[in-house]
């Protein structure tokens, strides 16, 4: 704690409570999930870079095919390329759907597979037995912390260039992926797997970064002065909470910790 000043130490000595060092995260990136292929899916996701290099991913999405597994991935690259989510114009073959191959030029290659357990590399991109399953209402709730050693190089540095894509739609409304809907998945077939419905591999949502926040919120105010000089200049301020400011002395005595 070489940076801590005596002014900051004093209140802690007066109230010698011992706190465990808080788990710290570097920053947290917010993602807004929007529907692809008229899936009706919407949701939010966060990617939080932990101090130890781990990445915590949370996803809350609704409108997915109920009781069905949904392959989901972080897409993009750690080289400064800023991919975007595709729109319907990416439907090059004009079949009315942006399939996985047609979306890849926009949202980039699979960067991390968001499985529920085990491997998270690109190799697990279609490992549907380890992908989250939507509940009976079509909701997917996902949370996983992926170890630093398992993340591609540059993940944290380029976190804000990445996207999240969820797959799996039901175009013929029979609550399952079947060949009757859109036929066989050309994407799976290109990887050497036959008989997979295109419904299972077509994108259902794509999420782009919508904001970012601090990874860890400090408690209370910041102790940045000891009253040893007069502050310079004449302040021109928007003063908020005027009455609260007048009452602050009382409140400060009641809640000393937030003042340190």
């Amino acid at each position, binding site marked *: 704690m070489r940076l801590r000043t005596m*002014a*900051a130490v004093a209140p802690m000595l007066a109230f010698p409570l011992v706190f465990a060092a808080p788990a710290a995260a570097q920053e947290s990136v917010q993602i807004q999930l929007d529907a692809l292929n008229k899936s009706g899916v919407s949701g939010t996701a966060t990617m939080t870079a932990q101090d130890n290099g781990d990445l915590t991913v949370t996803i809350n999405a609704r409108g997915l095919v109920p009781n069905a597994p949904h392959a989901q991935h972080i897409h993009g690259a750690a080289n400064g390329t800023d991919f975007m989510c*595709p729109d319907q114009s990416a439907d090059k073959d004009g079949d009315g759907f942006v399939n996985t191959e047609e979306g890849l030029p926009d949202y980039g290659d699979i960067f991390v597979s968001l499985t529920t357990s085990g491997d998270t590399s690109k190799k697990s991109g279609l490992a549907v037995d380890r992908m989250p399953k939507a509940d009976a209402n079509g909701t997917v709730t996902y949370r996983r912390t992926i170890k630093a050693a398992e993340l591609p190089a540059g993940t944290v540095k380029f976190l804000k260039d990445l996207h999240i894509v969820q797959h799996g739609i039901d175009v013929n409304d029979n609550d399952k992926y079947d060949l009757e809907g859109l036929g066989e998945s050309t994407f799976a077939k290109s990887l050497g797997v036959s008989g997979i419905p295109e419904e299972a591999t077509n994108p259902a949502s794509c999420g782009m970064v919508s904001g970012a926040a601090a990874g860890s919120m400090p408690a*209370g105010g910041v102790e940045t002065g000891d009253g040893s000089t007069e502050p310079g200049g004449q302040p*021109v301020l928007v003063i908020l909470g005027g009455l609260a400011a007048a009452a602050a002395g009382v409140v400060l005595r009641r809640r000393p*910790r937030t003042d340190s």
Partner: protein
Amino acid sequence: MVTAAGLVTVGVRAGDAPPGAAGVPPSSSVTASAGATTSAGATAAPPSRPVPPRRPGVGTRPRELTTGPVLPTSAPVRLDIPTLRVSTGLIGLGLQPDGTMEVPGDAATAGWYTAAPTPGSLGPAVVAAHVNLDGRPGVFTALATLRPGDTVEVARADGTVAVFAITTVQRHPKDRFPTEAVYGAIDHAGLRLITCGGDFDTARRSYRDNVVAFARLVRTERR
């Protein structure tokens, strides 16, 4: 139904996504508001060079969800506030064991909070410095005199200088610190400068308030 058999760990080809494919914008600096409007209604100085128009919506293509210019992540190394004649190095600040933010150990240095986005990148970057310490005026002795539109320059390790414009300067009791407004999620590259202000509580040897200057990125220079 999809059956798991035969689908487990299917390899996906590399190189499926050529960078620079049609429709991929050259950078994320797609939009830039022509001056930031503050909550108090004041308007920041407009950027000094032409502002690229917001990318027109093409079909149903999702629009960029962030606003204004943003830079890649890069650690800050120096802070300049021309109107306050501030020019100082920056050290990293973490959290103290009680969960409060560390502060610089001397009056002449400012620190950036390392558990938040780096200045110029998307999100709220945070810089703190003393208003005074050990009988000396601190780097932020006159922070409360900043006006909307004043510029704040942060030189970064990648050689770029992120130029911010002040949008609003506020004072809050420390026990009612606006944590969410300072550290919470925002859709642009922001900067918050923090010091102490208000009455000095001699019994507690502590200022009762924090002064927070909010700013947003308006342009980037390279030096």
